[in-house]
């Protein structure tokens, strides 16, 4: 494969390219997780549309139905369903805070001014402030997931 072919192949790695950790920095990992968590949350939302529709009797329902709601609650309100909710909160909170970081960087709010390239070739444009938002996102997500565990399994709230 020639140089052009290799370049094309490198640029068309698709999802495999996201998941290859070689030479990734924190921002690149945050990019991968933003997409993975986004797809995961979208799948949950679609499922959540389905389960909440049972409040009105499901796809063929005609109005609020306590029996239909009890039926779907019996399926989703258990330890496995609550584990899914804890994971949802974990990825949702990370996705939200990291998304705010992306918006701030997109509009240049948390970027450092670029400067001449000097050894050791660290990207000057990436500020420690924007990177700390990644870690704040992870920490807040973990705390929120622990809170969710306490609410769902220990009856807090």
């Amino acid at each position, binding site marked *: 494969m020639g140089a052009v072919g290799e370049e094309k192949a490198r640029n068309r790695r698709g999802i495999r390219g996201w998941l290859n950790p070689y030479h990734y920095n924190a921002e690149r990992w945050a990019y991968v997780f933003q*997409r993975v968590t986004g797809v995961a949350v979208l799948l949950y*939302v679609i499922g959540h*549309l389905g389960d909440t*529709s049972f409040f009105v009797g499901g796809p063929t329902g005609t109005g*609020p139905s306590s029996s239909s709601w009890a039926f779907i609650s019996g399926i989703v309100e258990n330890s496995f369903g609550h584990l899914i909710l804890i994971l949802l909160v974990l990825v949702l909170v990370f996705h*939200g805070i990291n*998304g705010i970081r992306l*918006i701030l960087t997109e509009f240049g709010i948390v970027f450092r001014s670029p400067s001449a390239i000097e050894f050791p070739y660290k990207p000057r444009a990436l500020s420690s402030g924007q990177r700390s938002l990644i870690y704040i996102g992870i920490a807040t997500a973990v705390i929120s997931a622990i809170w969710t565990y306490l609410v769902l399994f220990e009856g807090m*709230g």
Partner: protein
Amino acid sequence: MRESRLMLLQYATALVAVVLVSIHLVMQGVVLPYSTAISFGNILSIYRNWIYAIFLEALLVVVLVHGFNGLRIILSELKQSRPWSTWIDIGTVVAVVVTVAYGTRTVILAVFA
């Protein structure tokens, strides 16, 4: 719609979604105990409150537009060709319309039926 406008839409829906989803989560386990929050009677009273019904509809639209537009962006980056872009644009619009319609049906039936 131009790609730059669609990205602005993505950012705008993201900021609104952060607020709406935060309120939604706080309502389920902070304001009320979780078991009370998901009880049939409590949910019915929430749907029958106009402010919260409008809030749920806004949450539905904002989250689905953000979610499917985000998926469109991911798919756009995986492959570049005119037919692919056209199909995922059409698919995104159809997915948003169908899911918003289904969710809106739940809200309308819960409020009025």
